[in-house]
């Protein structure tokens, strides 16, 4: 009846009562569209909203807000909890040299990020770092890492374009032990997760190096395939962390939630520019706000 409708509206405006499936329906619809627009994976959006709705229904509504507003806050808090879980620091607590392996799709920012992490470790933690170029395919990829290393004063293993990536990894580890390096950062070629030969290569490299960190480098603009891509990488090499690059752009970054949903790997760093000092620690609050929009 009309009076029932008005009663509901009045109650809604007064912020009294509990969250129910009905009074959050509009908010759920709006948030779903916002998350899809932010590039969160379709299945991940569904799961996320089901989970949050189930948790939210029955909760008391704070006096000064509408059920819809309250529900948005529950979503925000849940997203922060999800993205904030896990170890966000690099795990270097192993007998040196600690090995960090970079992995990801073509052009995501691995080479640049390898240099950034190297600089971060050298300048903030006083670590002795060896950068290892293991991308023998992309023209001038080895030059790129060598040049970056040069500008930040970090040693770069002398890979040659004709070398085999596994031989490079092996020789670099020997040099790292002989040269008493604390950390070895291995840059790899970009690859798609359905390229069987390349996925086998990175699985082999990983097995040889026994890295303490395997970082999935993901472009903040990545769309729906973030789920399939990261899932496969995780199954093949075991991701210990994620770096979200190009966050200085205006992409909402929904891929972060997608990747977390299927790998559980915590975001360790965020790339915020092209220079080697443009690397930030991860703030779940900030990205949650950006994804929710």
């Amino acid at each position, binding site marked *: 009846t009309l009076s029932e409708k008005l009663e509901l509206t009045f109650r809604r405006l007064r912020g009294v009562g509990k969250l129910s499936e009905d009074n959050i329906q509009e908010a759920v619809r709006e948030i779903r569209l916002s998350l899809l627009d932010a590039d969160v994976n379709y299945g991940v959006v569904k799961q996320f909203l089901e989970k949050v709705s189930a948790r939210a229904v029955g909760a008391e509504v704070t006096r000064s807000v509408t059920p819809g507003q309250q529900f948005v806050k529950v979503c925000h808090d849940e997203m922060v909890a999800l993205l904030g879980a896990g170890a966000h620091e690099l795990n270097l607590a192993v007998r040196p040299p600690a090995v960090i392996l970079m992995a990801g799709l073509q052009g995501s920012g691995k080479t640049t990020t390898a240099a950034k992490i190297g600089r971060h470790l050298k300048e903030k933690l006083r670590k002795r770092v060896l950068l290892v170029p293991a991308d023998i395919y992309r023209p001038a990829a080895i030059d790129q890492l060598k040049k970056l290393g040069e500008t930040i004063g970090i040693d770069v293993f002398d890979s040659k374009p004709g070398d085999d990536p596994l031989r490079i990894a092996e020789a670099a580890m020997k040099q790292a032990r002989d040269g008493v390096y604390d950390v070895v950062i291995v840059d790899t070629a970009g690859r*798609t997760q359905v390229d069987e030969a390349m996925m086998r290569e990175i699985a082999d490299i990983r097995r040889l190096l026994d890295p303490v960190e395997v970082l999935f480098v993901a*472009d903040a603009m990545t769309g729906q395939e973030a789920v399939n891509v990261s899932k496969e990488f995780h199954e093949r090499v075991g991701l210990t962390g994620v770096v979200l690059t190009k966050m200085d752009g205006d992409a909402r970054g929904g891929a972060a939630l997608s990747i977390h949903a299927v790998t559980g790997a915590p975001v360790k760093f965020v790339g915020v520019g092209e220079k080697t000092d443009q690397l930030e620690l991860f703030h779940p609050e900030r990205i949650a706000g950006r994804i929710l929009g």
Partner: protein
Amino acid sequence: LFEASVVTDELVEKMEEILYSADLGVATVTSLMDEVRKARGALTTGDSVRDLLKDQIATILRTVEKPLVVPAQRPMVLLMIGVNGAGKTTTIGKLARRFIADGHRVTLAAGDTFRAAAVEQLSAWGVRTGAEVISEKEGADPAAVAFNAVNSAVAGGRDIVIIDTAGRLQNRVNLMEELRKVHRVLGKALDGAPHETILVIDANNGQNAVSQAREFGEAVPITGIIATKLDGTAKGGALVGIARELAIPVYFAGIGEAADDLRPFSAEAFTEALFS
């Protein structure tokens, strides 16, 4: 066991999931599903919903399926633009391969004077394809490199000049201004240049690709798009939204990292792939 003989809510949701999962985005999916709902009464099988959607999408994409034409004026100047890591430099190499196979004399301009080993990367593509590469020392003004390359191509009787630029994000005001300057300077070097300004878009991108097309397009007039990395599992559905909103021709699809991995864009093939 049975063909869907009634258009159920489940079927509609399944279709919606396919479209979203292909990165078509909220605006495009909403518009397409509205058409499905309107036609629902007349649709009698599950297949007919899929066919209706395929038809609508193919129709949209056919309006942007246009070939890249080499004009009479020489040299033809192409300016390649796009965000960081999209595939500009590699695509230039592929275009060089194609143009040289067609008998053209090609010059590449190393307009990315910023990123480590960008010039070396383009030079390698020059060696690989037989295109000449014009470059300056690191940190040189990109507009100056572009200007010099065109002048040198005119003097040398080259047919095609392709200008590589540094990757840039569309919200970086100073970088978009730099792009405007390069575009302007090309026009000063040669009347009518650049004949093509091509936006390179990574098929892995989600909805940000639409804002790239919009905002790069506000800085310089975009004449065409090349979508890269379609050999991965990403469908590149943002192209549908871009076609609807901006109607920019899509010239090629990049399908790998080698010089021959470039195919003319096909609305048909692209639409088929969306639903496979």
